[in-house]
């Protein structure tokens, strides 16, 4: 709202009747606008094809698949594949484990990121570039290069095959990325605002919670969503650390079945549907938060 009215004011102030040879008038739906819409829509549809194939085949009756293959729309609603897969993998427990691990990591990592970015982006600690480089390296280090020593150390301290081990490791890894992004954002934070708060007698901690965090909330929300989804999707380290069935996350539970069930395309689709369903649900929930956060930021 604010941006549009500002634009209109600018245009009104500029006076009427001037030619804009290349600029198009706003809010007019010319052919170029429709072409853009069609192009992006086709693009989006292509991206969605694999999802459509999974849904079609996850509920397709076995007999129909045998006669028509993967492409036809299902004639019935057959949940045999889904139910078989749910029971054989104890999928409910895997879901619970994944929620627990990803949720903890997202919250803890955002918290750590704020603290770090406050010190680096706003506190401008001496040598902050090197500290930032260290965090980047932590985030980008190939996990293959850490997995053996981590495995060894986790066994030594009795954390092997516990969810806590995975939570600790990914909190550090995700916070390293969050620190990098947030520091980049906070280093452009309006310093006048900070100085004004300081002159009003606010301490550093108060400034962090009362000024920096509320103003950065759109970015923090984005980080929270990313951390949750990224941790949920992690496969390599959870596969190594969560060996027993009762601790496994969704990707590990799915990965464990790779090779056993791949022979049957219907079970494959059912597994894929169950595997993608939770993340899509979370994303749809978060999507609203994201949009709200972003519009608030724009109107400000």
């Amino acid at each position, binding site marked *: 709202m604010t941006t549009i009215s500002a634009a209109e004011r600018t245009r009104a102030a500029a006076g009427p009747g001037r030619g804009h040879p290349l600029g198009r008038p706003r809010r007019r739906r010319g052919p170029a606008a429709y072409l853009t819409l069609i192009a992006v829509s086709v693009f989006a549809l292509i991206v969605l094809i694999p999802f459509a194939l999974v849904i079609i085949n996850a509920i397709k009756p076995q007999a129909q698949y045998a006669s028509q293959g993967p492409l036809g729309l299902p004639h019935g609603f057959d949940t045999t594949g889904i139910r078989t897969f749910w029971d054989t993998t104890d999928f409910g427990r895997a879901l619970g484990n994944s929620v627990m691990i990803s949720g903890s990591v997202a919250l803890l990592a955002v918290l750590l990121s704020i603290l770090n970015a406050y*010190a680096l982006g706003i506190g401008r600690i001496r040598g902050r570039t090197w500290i930032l480089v260290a965090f980047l390296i932590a985030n980008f280090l190939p996990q293959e290069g850490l997995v053996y020593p981590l495995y060894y150390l986790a066994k030594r301290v009795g954390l092997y095959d516990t969810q806590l081990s995975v939570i600790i490791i990914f909190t550090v890894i995700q916070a390293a990325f969050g620190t990098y992004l947030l520091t980049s954002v906070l280093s452009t934070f309006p310093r006048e605002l900070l100085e004004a708060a300081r002159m009003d007698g606010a301490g550093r901690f108060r400034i962090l919670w009362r000024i920096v965090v509320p103003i950065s909330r759109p970015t923090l929300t984005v980080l929270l969503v990313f951390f949750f989804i990224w941790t949920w999707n992690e496969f390599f380290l959870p596969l190594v650390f969560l060996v027993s069935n009762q601790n496994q996350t969704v990707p590990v539970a799915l990965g464990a079945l790779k090779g056993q069930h791949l022979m049957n395309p219907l079970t494959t689709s059912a597994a894929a549907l169950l*595997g993608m369903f939770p993340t899509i649900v979370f994303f749809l929930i978060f999507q609203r938060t994201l949009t709200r956060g972003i519009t608030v930021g724009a109107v400000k």
Partner: protein
Amino acid sequence: MTGSVAAERVAAARRVASPARRRRRGGAPYLVYLVPSIALFAAVIALPFGMNTYTSFTSWTGTGPMRWAGLANYRQLVHDSEFWASIWHSVLLVAAMAIVPAILGLLVAAALFDVIAKRFGQRIASVLRACIYLPQVLPIIVAAIVWGWILDAQNGALNGLLRDAGLGFLAHDLLGDPKTALLTVMAVLVWFQLGYPVVIFMAALQRADPQLAEAAEIDGASWWQRLWRITVPQIRPEIYVVLLTCTVASLRVFGWIFALTNGGPGTATQVPSYYSFQSFFTNLEVGYGSAIATVMTVIIICVSAVFLWAQRRNEAS
């Protein structure tokens, strides 16, 4: 009224916050905010990293005694054609996961934000953005299972579609042919990666000052000119973040290769990450695997350093 008070305070703050004063303090009081991270970082990253580097100079099967081997692992790497192939594939994956998605993502984000959101409504733009972002929310193992099935030579949906359409002669074992395997993986990676730059760039566009683009439009700048000369410079921090994280992600590709091709056929899709994994767990050459992981780390540190340097130079100017 409030405005003038605020303005006064800001002006006073400007006087107080002279650069010299800030530099003298060096941010020392803020150190306490870093303490929790430093402790965790030491235990989870620094120590294991040091141990891995040490292992790379040894000969070790993972269970028996560790034997010091000096530079033997690295000497072997230099003459290993599979290792060099894996490095080359990494370079190609940077194009598929960083360069192509960043360019496409910028165009899509700008089209969504500038044209579709403004002329057809925020809701349509949000839905399209969500569709394009969708692959990013999938666990890689799930996406790889889906694509493995779609691309399967016999039962795959793609070849099935081609046969149904009477184009059976086009049906091809894309992942099984050394000529097409890597290209196919690259195409799948573009599909997977695109949503990330789109979302980041759209958030960046929200942050950018619309008045600049408005002014340029009134001055007769075309959409392309505004995108390239006004928008791109304004969202440069996000572009750096996207390029850096995507490049590093492409140097670390593991799950896709693990689930889709196992590095094959032959070494057609071998990547350093998967090669080190094989050395660890299949060949039981932990020292050699550590050496590959260490080389990867050095490459990644160098790439990050170049990006950071460019970013700092950009911020300074």
